[in-house]
């Protein structure tokens, strides 16, 4: 036991001696959380559009005024001719064009019906559908104004309530996601590099010939990383409370417990990677480049998992951050207790145990 503590002390000294790296390990994840928390959102607003008004009458002016007033649209151009649209789309200047045909107002008044044309840049399907919907609702609004006075009978009035995130901010969705992403990648990477570095420098050999049990080597390697990650976690939680107005609604103890479980899982992945990698570069490539995009996409904070093909849905079950993301959302944002997350916690615990057991078994006590 005494051996182990000495060894853990050595590892801590290694980590804390290198101030610059330490600063990066703390500073960079925090910078990301703050940056993403403030900047990212799934909402689509201020889309640049062009108007082509062949009619220029009171009706079109009124409609254009309504479009201008909406924060969803940013009118960049008022074009005289629809022929210029293609060029504007190709330059990427605009995302949508609204075309009012000639005699728009006259037709509306005399025939009671007028049609305006919307052309969206379909290369971004999400934005195209969304802004077409926005415009549609502006027009519906206008129609309602026209219909005023004529009372509609049998009115069904839906009353909509947005739960948990009434202002539809981006942060409540992105902070838990980025937390999962950053913790997972940083932990994996730190561990994999720490072990491979000893291999690369040749000091691993010395460790292996010493009367030191392999499990002690592993534990002492993991200890400083665990501490760094937990400190990171607390800083992130504090920052999201102070700056992003996202306090932990549920039990902090539960969240920290699950987070430590998640951190241990990620550390074990790093361990596993380090066993197979020969150079630091290979370890990094595996942990960082190989895992970054899959983690990003399969955690479920960018795209809904239930939309994915079955094979990817199955694959996403293997990504620890997916389960952690669910836990954070429920505990931190909804304030639920252990009863709501026991299944996810159990899965994380099983993953952690399994990964650790595999890496312990595969840990080579000989170099070649």
């Amino acid at each position: 036991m005494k051996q182990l503590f000495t060894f853990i002390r050595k590892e801590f000294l290694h980590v804390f001696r290198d101030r610059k790296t330490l600063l990066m390990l703390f500073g960079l994840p925090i910078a990301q959380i703050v940056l993403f928390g403030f900047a990212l959102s799934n909402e689509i607003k201020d889309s640049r559009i062009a108007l082509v008004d062949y009619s220029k009458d009171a009706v079109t002016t009124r409609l254009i005024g309504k479009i201008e007033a909406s924060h969803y649209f940013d009118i960049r151009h008022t074009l005289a001719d629809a022929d210029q649209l293609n060029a504007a789309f190709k330059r990427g200047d605009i995302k949508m064009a609204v075309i009012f045909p000639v005699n728009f107002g006259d037709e509306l008044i005399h025939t009671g019906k007028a049609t305006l044309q919307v052309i969206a840049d379909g290369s971004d399907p999400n934005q195209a559908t969304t802004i077409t919907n926005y415009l549609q609702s502006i027009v519906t609004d206008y129609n309602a104004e026209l219909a005023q006075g004529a009372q509609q009978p049998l009115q069904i009035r839906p009353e909509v309530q947005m739960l948990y995130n009434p202002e539809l901010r981006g942060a409540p969705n992105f902070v838990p996601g980025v937390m999962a992403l950053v913790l997972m990648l940083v932990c994996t990477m730190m561990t994999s590099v720490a072990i491979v570095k000893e291999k690369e420098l040749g000091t691993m050999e010395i460790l292996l010939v010493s009367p030191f049990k392999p499990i002690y080597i592993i534990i002492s390697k993991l200890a400083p990383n665990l501490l760094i990650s937990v400190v990171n976690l607390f800083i992130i939680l504090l920052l999201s409370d102070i700056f992003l107005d996202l306090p932990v609604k549920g039990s902090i103890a539960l969240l920290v417990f699950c987070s430590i479980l998640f951190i241990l899982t990620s550390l074990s992945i790093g361990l596993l990677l380090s066993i197979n990698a020969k150079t630091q570069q290979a370890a990094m490539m595996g942990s960082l480049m190989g895992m970054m995009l899959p983690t990003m996409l399969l955690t479920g904070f960018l795209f809904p998992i239930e939309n994915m093909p079955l094979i990817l849905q199955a694959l996403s079950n293997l990504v620890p951050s997916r389960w952690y993301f669910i836990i954070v959302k429920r505990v931190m944002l909804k304030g639920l207790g252990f009863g709501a997350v026991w299944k996810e916690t159990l899965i994380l615990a099983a993953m952690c145990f399994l990964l650790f057991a595999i890496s312990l078994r595969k840990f080579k006590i000989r170099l070649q």
Partner: protein
Amino acid sequence: MKTLYFILEKEFRQLLRNRQLMRTLLLAPLIQLILLPLAADYTVKDIQIAVTDNDHSPTSQRLIAKITASGYFRLAGYTASYPQALQMVEQDKADLALQIPAHFERDLVRENSKQLYIAINAIEGTKANLGGAYLQNIISDFNDDVRIQWNVSGVENSQSTPGDSQQITAGDIPQVTVTSSNWYNPLLKFPLYMVPAILVTLVTAMVAMQSAFNIVQEKESGTIEQINVTPIKKHIFIIGKMIPFLVLGIVLFTMGLLVGRILYGIVPLGSLWVLYLSLIVYLFSMLGLGLLLATYSFTQMQAMSLSFFFINIFNMMSGVFTAVDSMPGWAQTIVATFPPSHFIKIMRMVVLKGSGFSDILPKLGAMALIGLFLNTWAVLNYRKTA
């Protein structure tokens, strides 16, 4: 020139000799490019809805049938009370809850108006927004059906016009209608939009940042000192470090385009020359960034932490997944200094819309300027430290 040739030979040998690295560099991105676009789909469908029907009238039954038949919603379950439905939302068993209050039908007839209650889990903004909008559209449609069925007037049932986006107009109240079309991707296929961008992020991660590791590796193992004492000029050394990764980037990019073509049927509409020219300018600026990071790092761990930081920020903020236009102004200014944000735009423009050289020139110029700036900074800084 001859020195450069030898340096290049050394670099290529070192790179190609490392089989494990080469495998990761080339295979991992391909596998990701094959699988990941399938994961990136925003289309909102199968929204789980929990229904509390306290009315149990034919009208409420028909409304529920209409909602579930729409294709957007899937019935997660009926609950006896609204709090139970809300609990299903809480446990993520349902995305939204709908309550049809007691005496819904009766009150609708008697009082000419009646509320419905909808609660939406708004943590995921897109889903909440679209789900709410779909549901309200369906309800408003249903409302029209009810009016027609009960043939209540004040409203002449004018003939309904075909076309799904058009409402049944009521009598002689004037109506503006909208016809919409989507250019460049009329079927609104998501992979078409995602594949070019994911390819860029893969090239960034796999290649552009490798130069940083590579140089720091020489620092850590001490071989850089050996090179420093030889008469090799600094810029030749740097060019020698960059060219192999430039080549690797081009190879990877080409493989990616082929995968996109074979699997997703994406054929660039614009000219390939414009694409490759932009790629080279892009790699130039990203390799410059890698070099700069290398001059500030002493260990591979540091180089990696820094590159991870930048790559993650580039991935999240360059408009791959979320629209740059909706970010706050200060964030948009920051994003404009990221080379990937420009290259991703260029890729999407050239591949999907067939934009030409003059269309992308401003973005290409911005990228070249950033590249020049980063490389100059790196070279200046390199001289001092080495």
